[in-house]
């Protein structure tokens, strides 16, 4: 509790201690029954102790020509009750209202801290290496290019590259993924990860403000300022609602005693006061932004960064989705997936291929080397010649080896057998004869097919794959994913055009999402209703371009993001419907004379407490 809250608590306790004996006195539980001249000043002590700030704010509000806020409502209601002579009720309402205020401020403070704790990736210090040893400093003061030391158990304070040491990093706070990542010298480390076992010496590459942890925190904090439609709705609602209930209360106090039951001023005034108490819009106004904030906080804990409450709303209504192939559903790295028609031992063929390609750094050559499993011995290779657009010829152990496409084989006069598999086909010529071909292709991510199935289960009606790759490759990937709808051979501009047609095809209320790796898909990401970037850890471009950022590259997280959004939206709707219904019911009851001041305050404070507790459920996203 902060200072303000403690003061309020003391005021509440003091006034309650005063109030109880006075209540017993006024209700005739003790033999003496003093008159109003004695009771009124006595009751004013707890009343003013509990409510002086409300009265002051109400007065200031009137002076600034701003009536109709909740302070005004409470001041009028309680003073009204006291004027009619219902001292006990007026004072009790003021005390209970303050109890509600205290709870609200405490609960909001608590949840604010809980949410911030979930995103506890802000590093507190960095161990800077200076001439004389280590110095513990504020990470904000460490310039890029400094050398820092990270002990086991410490957070990585700044992005950098490892100079010395090996360790495992827990990236959970950034990605929501619990599997540790092994790092060694030369590897990049990102701030916000936790160093688990070894001591690391790191050269920083970025300043604090540019580091991953700061950027993510900044993004999540800014997310709240992009308000969702339901938030602006509530704000606008509150603006008209409060004056409306004030005039209704006035009407309730004046009209019935004039026309309906002549002279019954006191009863109707009391009803009007209770009416005012119920009408406070706090429950709505607090619980809606709190739900969104908790939802965004919970999502970021799972490695899903949502850039605004409005995107949570959009995400929940996604019914049409398009995604990019390479890097989104496939790993984006090549590997050897088959060796066909080999005229010799497959291992030997691979050995020739890896050696012939040993000078190249192309991803396909690298996939050959990793399939070979050993480092090629460059001394065995001579006369390496690259044939642009065709392949490579070389002399390996005195044997003439040619690795390349059909054009190369045709030019060299090697009879080859074409392949019906999708992917890059490497034909091999060995000593002028055909040695077979090696198929190199991109692999699907582990959860890609599951993700498509789960998306369908989550109610996404149309799923399309857009790719710049060839028809054959696209068809194979689509089949493995269980998709029927795909567009192959698209240029970036054509992807945007196709996204436009998908957007137009959306029915009202349906939203279109595009999932990409964020680097070359920026135009489509921004064109879609909601752009989702995957595998964005360490990629600033992706974080810039997308509305929702998945920190790791597991496609199942797309489904997680949608489920989190839906849960959050459901809770928001529950809160709106619940508080409006209860309030409307209580307003009617009180107007009809079936409720009293006690019901009124219970409705006001109770609804608020329940709405806040319900909003906090948005934080639990573990099982989605």
């Amino acid at each position: 509790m902060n200072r303000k809250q403690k003061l309020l608590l003391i005021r509440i306790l003091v006034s309650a201690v005063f109030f109880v004996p006075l209540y017993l006195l006024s209700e005739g539980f003790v033999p003496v029954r003093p008159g109003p001249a004695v009771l009124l000043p006595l009751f004013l002590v707890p009343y003013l102790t509990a409510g002086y700030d409300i009265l002051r704010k109400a007065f200031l509000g009137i002076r600034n020509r701003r009536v109709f806020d909740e302070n005004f409502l409470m001041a009028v209601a309680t003073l009204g009750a006291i004027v009619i002579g219902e001292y006990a009720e007026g004072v009790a309402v003021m005390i209970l209202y303050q109890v509600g205020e205290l709870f609200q401020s405490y609960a909001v403070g608590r949840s604010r801290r809980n949410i911030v704790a979930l995103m506890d990736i802000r590093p507190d210090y960095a161990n800077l290496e200076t001439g004389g040893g280590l110095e513990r400093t504020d990470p904000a003061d460490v310039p890029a290019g400094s050398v820092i030391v990270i002990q086991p158990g410490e957070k990585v304070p700044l992005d950098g590259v490892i100079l010395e040491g090996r360790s495992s990093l827990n990236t959970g706070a950034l990605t929501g993924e619990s599997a540790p990542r092994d790092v060694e010298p030369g590897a990049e480390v990102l701030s916000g990860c936790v160093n688990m076992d070894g001591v690391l010496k790191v050269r920083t590459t970025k300043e604090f403000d540019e580091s991953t942890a700061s950027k993510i925190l900044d993004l999540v904090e800014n997310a709240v300022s992009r308000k969702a439609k339901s938030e602006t709705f509530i704000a606008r609602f509150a603006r008209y609602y409060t004056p409306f209930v004030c005039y209704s209360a006035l009407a309730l106090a004046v009209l019935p005693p004039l026309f309906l039951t002549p002279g019954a001023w006191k009863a109707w005034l009391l009803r009007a006061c209770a009416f005012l108490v119920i009408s406070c819009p706090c429950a709505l106004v607090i619980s809606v932004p709190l739900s969104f904030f908790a939802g965004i906080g919970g999502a970021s804990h799972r490695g899903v960064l949502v850039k605004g409450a409005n995107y949570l709303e959009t995400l929940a209504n996604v019914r049409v989705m398009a995604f990019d192939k390479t890097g989104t559903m496939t790993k984006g790295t090549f590997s050897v997936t088959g060796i066909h028609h080999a005229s010799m031992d497959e291992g030997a063929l691979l050995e020739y291929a890896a050696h012939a390609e040993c000078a190249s750094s192309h991803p396909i050559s690298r996939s050959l080397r990793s399939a070979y499993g050993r480092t090629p011995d460059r001394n065995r290779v001579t006369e390496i010649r690259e044939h642009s657009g065709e392949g490579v010829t070389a002399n390996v152990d005195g044997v003439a080896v040619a690795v390349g496409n059909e054009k190369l084989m045709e030019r060299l006069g090697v009879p080859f057998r074409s392949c019906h598999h999708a992917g890059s086909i490497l034909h091999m010529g060995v000593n002028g004869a055909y040695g077979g071909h090696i198929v190199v292709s991109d692999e699907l991510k582990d959860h890609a097919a599951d993700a498509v199935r789960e998306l369908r289960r989550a109610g996404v009606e149309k799923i399309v794959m857009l790719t710049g790759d060839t028809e054959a490759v696209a068809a194979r990937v689509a089949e493995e994913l269980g998709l029927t709808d795909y567009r192959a051979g698209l240029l970036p501009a054509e992807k945007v055009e196709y996204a436009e047609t998908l957007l137009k095809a959306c029915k009202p209320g349906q939203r279109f999402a595009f999932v990409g790796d964020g680097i070359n898909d920026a135009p489509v990401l921004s064109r879609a209703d909601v752009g989702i970037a995957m595998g964005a850890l360490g990629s600033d471009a992706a974080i810039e371009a997308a509305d929702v950022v998945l920190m790791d590259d597991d496609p199942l997280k797309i489904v997680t993001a949608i489920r989190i959004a839906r849960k959050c939206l459901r809770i928001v709707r529950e809160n709106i419907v619940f508080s409006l219904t209860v309030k409307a019911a209580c307003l009617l009851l009180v107007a009809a004379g079936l409720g009293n001041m006690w019901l009124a305050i219970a409705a006001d404070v109770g609804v608020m407490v329940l709405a806040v507790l319900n909003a906090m459920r948005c934080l639990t996203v573990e099982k989605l």
Partner: protein
Amino acid sequence: MKKTYVIDVDCANCANLMEEAAKKTEGVKDCSVSFMTLKMKVAFQDGADAGEVMKRVRDNCRKVEADCEIYL
């Protein structure tokens, strides 16, 4: 030009009122108040002096919510 200020205010509705009051202040192009993070983001009009404008913003906010604070 955009700047972010730390604020202190007790209730969510008051934060909404502050946002409205700030938006109507001369020199302010746009403003967004977050009750959850207790921050006010202000976009100033071109050529406006942020310090001067923020004093007016604070005065206007105090008119709608007497107990609010903007840390300039």
